């Protein structure tokens, strides 16, 4: 057992309101430089939708991640790797170009003031931030924001591929339409494809906290990481000729601050904590499954119980500080992921073992209740207030609940394709747990649900009332210190502590105290 620590994030998607504050906070700190304008280390996507860059989840296009050939075969990089990477080094056939993201632009605001007097209103024309010439804006980082029903965006979502045409149609009927938001940053994977694809060896995973970084002094612009990352979270800076990616705000983490995206999160959807994992099992967890839900089970198996004395002992032998073990024991992410089994990784079938986890959204599923009986709805419409009555919108009786989850208007298959490699049962289990917590809390606060029914509901999903209360507390009430639990920086580990964080702003932002200028 080789125990290591990973700083890991959980996103509670039911709480995400899609405000993009995280994206803006990240952009202002890290990517407001030349060549990085188009990069969004943190971005928020509307699902169903095509995302950024367009259709990034479709690996038939982008060739990211690992693939396994044959049932018992080894895994290899889909679009990169030693042989393929070196043969394609002069021209990488799978490299997305800037138009797959969007051409960065600004507006000629000065024209509004300095335009000579004339008959027409002065306008601020958009200009390209690459060429400086006027352009027609065709895409942006959140171009499909809230456009869940549109044929151009939502219907091109790669996650829809396993859904029957009828199911897809049902999903996009105007009155049935639902969507949710998906914030994405680098997953800081345990089996990162970007690290494996880098010919220079510039990308590495930090042993102490698992942050995946690109050494800017070693990167030589061979561009393989951009192809290899199935989440398209490694970006090529076209000006400096270096690849860049989310650094999990490690200079902030080492100084005891939360990452900017998390700190600015309006909906408080993010949780950050330490997880202990067994590095000896990484290889088998990435290999021993056939793109099915077994992927999740294997990944959960890597994550270790921080209270297990054997694990603690092995951690100490590996030189892990007591404070790190302590942080792992109080970690909110461990609770969501392992203890309660509520959070799952995004696209585990890419085999990179992503270490960011998502609590799938219950709300689009539950909101489907209304559609089943149209005639009854009409009767229940309050003619004066013109609003639906609450008591049928959220009918919390358990018989209704399980039935609703099964025939949700938001097909579970869709969410299963995103989070559990297509296994609907796993998603259903999580949604049932989330609903059971609500039923339990309704029993406590409103009291209109019989106690035995609450009890059978909780037992049905394997929760105790105490656990349900804990879930409720951490989901709804938790203060910042409960959502953000990382060990104190250990001076002997913190390479960057001597650097003032502000110094890196304007330079390359990677702890090298050199202005990132294009080389000769």
């Amino acid at each position, binding site marked *: 057992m080789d125990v290591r620590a990973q700083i890991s994030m959980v996103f509670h998607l039911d709480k995400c309101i899609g405000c993009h504050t995280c994206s803006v906070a990240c952009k202002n700190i890290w990517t407001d430089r030349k060549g990085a304008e188009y990069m969004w280390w943190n971005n928020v996507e509307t699902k169903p939708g095509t995302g950024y860059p367009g259709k990034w989840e479709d690996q038939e296009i982008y060739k990211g991640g690992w693939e396994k050939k044959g049932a018992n075969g080894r895994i290899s990089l889909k679009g990169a790797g*030693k042989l393929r*990477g*070196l043969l394609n*080094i*002069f*021209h*990488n056939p799978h*490299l*997305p*170009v*800037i138009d797959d993201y969007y051409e960065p632009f600004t507006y000629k605001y000065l024209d509004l003031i300095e335009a000579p007097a004339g008959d027409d209103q002065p306008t601020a024309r958009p200009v390209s931030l*690459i*060429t*400086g*010439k006027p352009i027609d804006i065709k895409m942006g980082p959140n171009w499909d924001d809230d456009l869940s029903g549109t044929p151009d965006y939502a219907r091109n979502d790669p996650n829809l591929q396993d859904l029957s045409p009828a199911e897809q149609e049902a999903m996009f009927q105007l009155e049935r339409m639902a969507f949710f938001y998906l914030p994405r940053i680098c997953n800081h994977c345990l*089996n*990162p494809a970007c*690290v*494996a694809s880098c010919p*220079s*060896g510039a*990308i*590495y*995973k*930090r*042993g*102490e906290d698992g942050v995946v970084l690109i050494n*800017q*002094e*070693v*990167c*030589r*612009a*061979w*561009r393989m990481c*951009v192809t290899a990352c199935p989440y398209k979270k490694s970006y*090529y800076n*076209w*000006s*400096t*000729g*270096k690849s860049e990616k989310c650094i999990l705000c490690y200079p902030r983490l080492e100084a005891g601050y939360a990452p900017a995206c998390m700190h600015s999160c309006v909906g408080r959807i993010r949780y950050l904590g330490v997880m202990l994992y067994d590095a000896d099992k990484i290889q088998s967890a990435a290999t021993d499954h056939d793109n099915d839900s077994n992927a999740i089970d294997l990944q959960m198996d890597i994550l270790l119980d921080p209270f297990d004395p054997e694990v603690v002992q092995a951690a*100490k032998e*590996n*030189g*892990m500080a007591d404070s790190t073990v302590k942080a792992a024991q109080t970690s909110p992410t461990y609770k969501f992921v392992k203890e309660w089994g509520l959070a799952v990784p995004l696209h585990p079938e890419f085999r990179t073992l992503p270490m960011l986890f998502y609590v799938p959204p219950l709300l689009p599923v539950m909101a489907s209740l209304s559609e089943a009986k149209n005639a009854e709805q009409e009767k229940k419409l309050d003619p004066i207030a013109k609003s639906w009555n609450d008591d049928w919108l959220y009918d919390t009786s358990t018989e209704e609940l399980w039935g609703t989850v099964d025939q949700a208007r938001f097909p579970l298959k869709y969410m299963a394709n995103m989070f559990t490699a297509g296994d609907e049962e796993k998603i259903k289990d999580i949604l049932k747990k989330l609903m059971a917590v609500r039923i339990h809390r309704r029993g406590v606060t409103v009291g209109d649900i019989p106690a035995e029914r609450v009890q059978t509901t909780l037992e049905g999903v394997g929760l105790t009332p105490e656990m349900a209360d804990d879930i409720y507390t951490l989901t709804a009430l938790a203060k910042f210190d409960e959502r953000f639990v990382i060990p104190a920086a250990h001076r*002997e*580990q*913190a*390479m960057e502590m*001597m*650097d003032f964080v502000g110094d890196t702003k304007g330079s*390359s932002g990677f702890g*090298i*105290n*050199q202005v*990132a200028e*294009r*080389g*000769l």
Partner: protein
Amino acid sequence: MDLLNNFTLIGLPYAALVLFVVGTIYRYRATRFTYSSLSSQFLEGRQLFWGSMPFHWGLLVLFLGHLAAFLIPETVLAFNSHPVRLLIIEISAFMFALIVLVGIVTLFYRRVTNPRVQAVTTRIDLIVEILLILEVIIGISVALGFRWGSAWFPAVITPYLHSLMALQPDISAVATLPGVLKLHIVLAFLIILLFPFTRLVHFLVVPLHYIARPYQRVIWSWNRKQVRDPDTAWTITRPYQEVPNFLQKLVPSETVELLQQKLISRCCKHRK
């Protein structure tokens, strides 16, 4: 004429070689960040394919051909002793030269016409590309005008290059060569001279070590097995720099420690 010959065939080559060695090493140590191929594929990919692929692969073959004639002249001459083999080697080299020409002209055309690529084009990029185009055209005209280069290169140019390396420059043979040929040599040294001032340095950091390394890389900033062991010297554990395993086995532990200190002072030099 002697003066010109001395300058272009002795002075320039030495200046170029010294600048090449000193310049690239200095640039690597001082501003490693600038070592990059500065790929522009992200801005324009389709034209690049028709330029970059023929240019690089063709140039690789031509470079290896010149290198072989320089390093193993006898073998090349022996190989050429049979006319069929001489024909094969000459014709294929000529084909590759044409391929390179097509590639570099495409690249140049792309660089001056595509507005996005223009945005990342510097003056030195254009100078390098023009020099390369000239060099390839001159090389092709040499191959056409002065046949069987693979036969006379090892006999005429290789001794000259060897004499340069031996610091006893002997230009008696090359000085009598036709002007086009001398121009080819001079341009080659000019390009070598420009290396440390251009993106050409990416040739020196070709990532062949990728083949040998394991796919995943985990770096610890301190030695995790020893950092909390009170018996371990402070210097070994912090900040941790890897001394290769085979060295640790070969040399005594004090030397390993000394090496590690060296690595530490190097890695921390840029910190105030």
